[in-house]
């Protein structure tokens, strides 16, 4: 079964829009068709925006639990050291989390930092993709 790592740019839209690709991808996790993983750091990123997105931290945690998303414990600065050359400092925890949890895909909507060609190339064998691209594969 494929393992996917979700960053905040996927979890936030999934919380806000049930018809979007992120929410539908999370349904595949809930139905145990794929394994969904995130990290404590990503959850904290989402929670930091709780006022902005109109969801309190408890609702966010409930959403993660209800959808059977596994949470990797905090990625530390030491752990990110091996991946610092791949991506900018504030996003390195995402790539590190995906690599340490041995995920096949890192799913993100972050065009600016993670979906850049050079990052996608450097992160291999981890595949960085969007919910839409992964869903297209899943329905084939």
């Amino acid at each position, binding site marked *: 079964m494929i393992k996917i790592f979700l960053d*905040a*740019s*996927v979890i*936030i*839209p999934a919380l*806000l*829009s049930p*018809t*979007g*690709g*992120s929410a*539908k991808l999370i*349904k*595949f996790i809930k*139905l145990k*068709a794929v394994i969904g993983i995130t990290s404590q*750091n*990503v959850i*904290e*990123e989402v929670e*930091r*925006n709780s006022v*902005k*997105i109109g969801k309190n931290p408890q609702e966010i945690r409930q959403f993660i639990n209800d959808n059977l998303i596994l949470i990797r414990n*905090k*990625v*530390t*600065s*030491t*752990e*990110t*050291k*091996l991946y610092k050359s791949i991506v900018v*400092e*504030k*996003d*390195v*925890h995402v790539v*590190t989390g995906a690599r*340490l949890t041995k995920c096949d895909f890192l799913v993100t*909507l*972050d*065009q*600016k930092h993670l979906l850049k060609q050079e990052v996608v190339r450097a992160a291999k064998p981890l595949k960085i993709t*969007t*919910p*839409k691209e992964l*869903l*297209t594969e*899943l*329905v084939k």
Partner: protein
Amino acid sequence: MKQLATTPLQQEYLRILGKGMVTIPKEWRDELGLEEGKIVKAEKVGNKLIIEVSEEKAPYRTFSDTEIEQWLEADKLPKKLSREIDLKLKELKSD
């Protein structure tokens, strides 16, 4: 987890194995939460080798309203794909 700071100096003689590997005593590994795959900081100071367990949190990002709006826009699915996904999900539910 036991606090090493409250215990006297702990020393062990370790044998260097092939390729410079050493086995850290199990009790120390358990106390320090050193699991396979975990990364630690190694430092050479004179004739001492210090292995440090760091739990410093990695820096992370906060997002602007514009970024969130852009994600929501990019997250929209074409109607055809959306229908195909719903059908697949229905199949999975009935399995």
